[in-house]
């Protein structure tokens, strides 16, 4: 089976969990004997060099960094980049800012291979929707040129591309809901985005949701036929740790960590309020908020206001080794998300032996047993759970061990098997 897949990012250029998820899923699918033609828009100044390297298959290892790439993957994964300004999770405000930042690159940027070939605008678009459309246009050309059995599109930005590809090729379409507009924006949904999401799911032959929570939203709030909506929970890549690196903790206090984008969806303020309550009782704890986002300044102000600044630290955006390092220094990981379609970061914490406290409003809560689950708004319960893990050694110990074992059983291979089964309902082999 050959799948034409539309994504929006791929490691190492990731801004959220989606790039990691696509990568894990793709690798899992390759193991199922599926060939994947992966198409991503690129947003940053280094895309042309990357693209050249990618086209030259002998250089593929550089792109994938530490990942071991088997020859099978080389043979079956075709990676296509399209010059575009699409970014995951981008709201219109963020998008405007991004355009401003990237205007600098405009003169110097070398046009991506495909953009020349397909006469794709190559210039950074006037608005996000135009980029989505341009991406869809290019997608339809790719669909026309390539041979494949099925189209798989990840999240709304790629849905128009998926729909076009379906129309051009006549092949079935699977759309993958990693997040809904309700998760991103609460009740203030962007109507245009909502419409694209709904259109994508209506046109799709199958809809894959990353949790039952998301499945419920898709059915109830988008009116999608439940019969074609399937939940496939995400998984996590096994940890790759180099023997020579050992992280040492430099503070004697216990460390409680929030790691993620500092946005409405992630509920950072609840973490701060919980921290305040714990510090009132026990000053020998340090809290870290790792990440960046539009609520960051507000959060810094709130910490100052509460007078806990000497015990509460901000790191800014972390990636790669720094994330692993942060987990290695943490005693508890907290994910207080208000609405989290899945939430892969607790799994990353658990595989580093870190006990986790997660909100019940997350898809990942559906698959985890060895985690404390609280309502995101229940600051007291959250504080109590954190305190319990810090103060009752046996609890810390059991979470640390059983949590790791649990996560190691959540394999992308298995998730990919479930996705493959969804494919099989559409493609006869």
């Amino acid at each position: 089976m050959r799948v034409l897949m539309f994504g929006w990012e791929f490691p190492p250029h990731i801004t959220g969990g989606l790039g990691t998820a696509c990568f894990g899923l793709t690798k899992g699918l390759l193991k199922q004997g599926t060939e994947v033609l992966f198409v991503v828009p690129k947003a940053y100044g280094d895309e042309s060099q990357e693209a050249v390297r990618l086209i030259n298959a002998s250089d593929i290892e550089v792109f994938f960094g530490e990942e071991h790439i088997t020859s099978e993957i080389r043979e079956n994964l075709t990676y296509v980049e399209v010059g575009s300004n699409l970014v995951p999770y981008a709201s219109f405000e963020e998008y405007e800012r991004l355009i401003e930042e990237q205007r600098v690159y405009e003169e110097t940027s070398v046009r991506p291979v495909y953009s020349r070939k397909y006469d794709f605008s190559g210039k950074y678009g006037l608005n996000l929707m135009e980029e989505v459309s341009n991406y869809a246009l290019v997608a339809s050309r790719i669909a026309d040129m390539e041979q494949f059995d099925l189209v798989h599109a990840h999240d709304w930005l790629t849905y128009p591309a998926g729909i076009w590809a379906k129309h051009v090729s006549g092949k079935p379409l699977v759309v993958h809901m990693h997040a809904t507009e309700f998760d991103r924006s609460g009740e203030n949904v962007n109507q245009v985005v909502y419409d694209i999401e709904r259109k994508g799911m209506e046109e799709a032959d199958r809809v894959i949701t990353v949790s039952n929570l998301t499945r419920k939203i898709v059915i109830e709030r988008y009116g999608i036929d439940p019969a074609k909506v399937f939940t496939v929970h995400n998984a996590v890549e096994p940890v790759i740790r180099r023997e020579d690196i050992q992280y040492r903790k430099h503070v004697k206090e216990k460390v409680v960590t929030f790691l993620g984008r500092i946005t409405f969806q992630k509920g950072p303020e609840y973490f701060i309020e919980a921290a305040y309550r714990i510090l009132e009782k026990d000053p020998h704890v340090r809290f870290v908020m790792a990440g960046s986002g539009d609520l960051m300044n507000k959060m810094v102000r709130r910490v100052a206001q509460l007078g806990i600044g000497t015990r509460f630290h901000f790191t800014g955006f972390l990636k790669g080794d720094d994330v692993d390092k942060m987990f290695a220094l943490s005693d508890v990981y907290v994910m207080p998300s208000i609405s989290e379609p899945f939430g892969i970061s607790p799994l990353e914490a658990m595989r580093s032996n870190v006990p986790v406290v997660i909100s019940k409003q997350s898809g990942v809560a559906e698959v985890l047993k060895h985690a404390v689950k609280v309502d995101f708004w229940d600051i007291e319960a959250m504080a109590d759970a954190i305190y319990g893990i810090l103060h009752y050694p046996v609890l810390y110990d059991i979470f640390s061990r059983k949590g790791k074992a649990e996560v190691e059983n959540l394999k992308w291979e298995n998730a990919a098997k479930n996705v493959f089964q969804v494919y099989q309902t559409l493609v006869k082999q």
Partner: protein
Amino acid sequence: MNATKAICLNFQVHQPYRLRTYRFFDIGENHHYYDDYQNRSIIRRVAEKSYIPANKVLLDLIKKHGKKFRISFSISGLALEQMQKHAPEAMEGFTKLATTGNVEFLAETYAHSLASLKDSEEFIAQVNKHAALIESLFGQKPKTFRNSELIYSDVIGEMVADMGYFTMLTEGAKHILGWKSPNYLYCNAINPRLKILLKNFQMSDDIAFRFCRKDWSEWPLTAEKFTGWIKALDPKQEVVNIFIDYPALGERQGAETGIFDFLKALPAAVLKNTAHTFLTPSELAETLQPVSAIHAPYPVSWADEERDVTAWLGNELQQEAVSKLYSLAPLVARCADETIQRDWTRLQTSDHFYYMSTKWFSDGEVHKFFNPYASPYEAFINYMNVLSDFTIRVEQATGKTAVATSVPTAASRPVPPPAGKVVKSATPRKTVKSAPAGKAAKSTPEGKAVKLTLERKPAKKAGKTPKGKK
């Protein structure tokens, strides 16, 4: 040999004091631990649906059948306390049953605790306290003992015999019975003076669990059908021990299932056969001769498929909570404070540890049914918060330190094994004990090893009254 069969009915009545949501910021500030509203409403609900109507049915049956219908009860001290406070009608029913002379009231641990597994002195003290309460309420000094959740081992049986009890009830667990039948009288392996009655779990569970299940092949169960099963047993067998959790009558299986009609019809159906009698446990022990000793080197109970104590002591959370609790015993013994003694008793209730069981992750709807917590972790955190506050109070009252606590940090965590190498996961951290030597229970890695922590006490201790208790 004759075809005579004695039916021995025993009903367990117990209600714990459930803990309220007790946050860590309450520690050292608020010493009230209980969810009063929930406890009151549960005892009210269970009394109205089960205790009160069931008592009435049993009383009517005794009136109808006279001396021929005989039953027994084990009611925990905490259940009696709560009934006195919130369900006096239920108490009245039990008192009326007592006055008929057809009802035997058994001794158990006052708090429905695991003390028999962890602290022999505390165990003896609780049994004595409970026996005294039973005598004052029902006018009879208990002669038969039923441990919490039918927990039994050879050593526990020996302690019970040393306290002066003649008979004890336990589970007819397959792993202690082997090829033997529960339908005979047995005796303790260490002290044969103690007669052992074994629950026929097949027939007990037919009434207590399967009765209401329409997908059960034997549904609907009638008194005639049930009596037919008794008749069909090997004629040599002498007794059928039906031990039931009382709320199975009316609460877990509502009146609409016909459970009360079944109960009403049962004695007449059984007694129609003149070879059948109803006997209370101590009457049974006086009437029959034990056929052999029963060996239970490891503790058994009536819980789950395993019929062992892993429902309460099966995981690290439970072992930690129980051992931390019992490490306080020597200090609590020095406290005269009435509220400390009261809380000490209530915190020992086995239910608290049952809520921490991780067994329901795989199976066990029963665990979920009785559990007010969403997860064992929440149960543990809440209990440990309460216990932390209780420890502070005990330490303040005695001026002594109870237990040193080591708190792990990421720095002390073992470095995860490098990729590609197989390294066994870290062993559980050993709890540091600095409790005064003597009766502090040792923490055990496995639930089944708990018997090792039990100290055997000389018989003369049996009469001792607990310190600081009224």
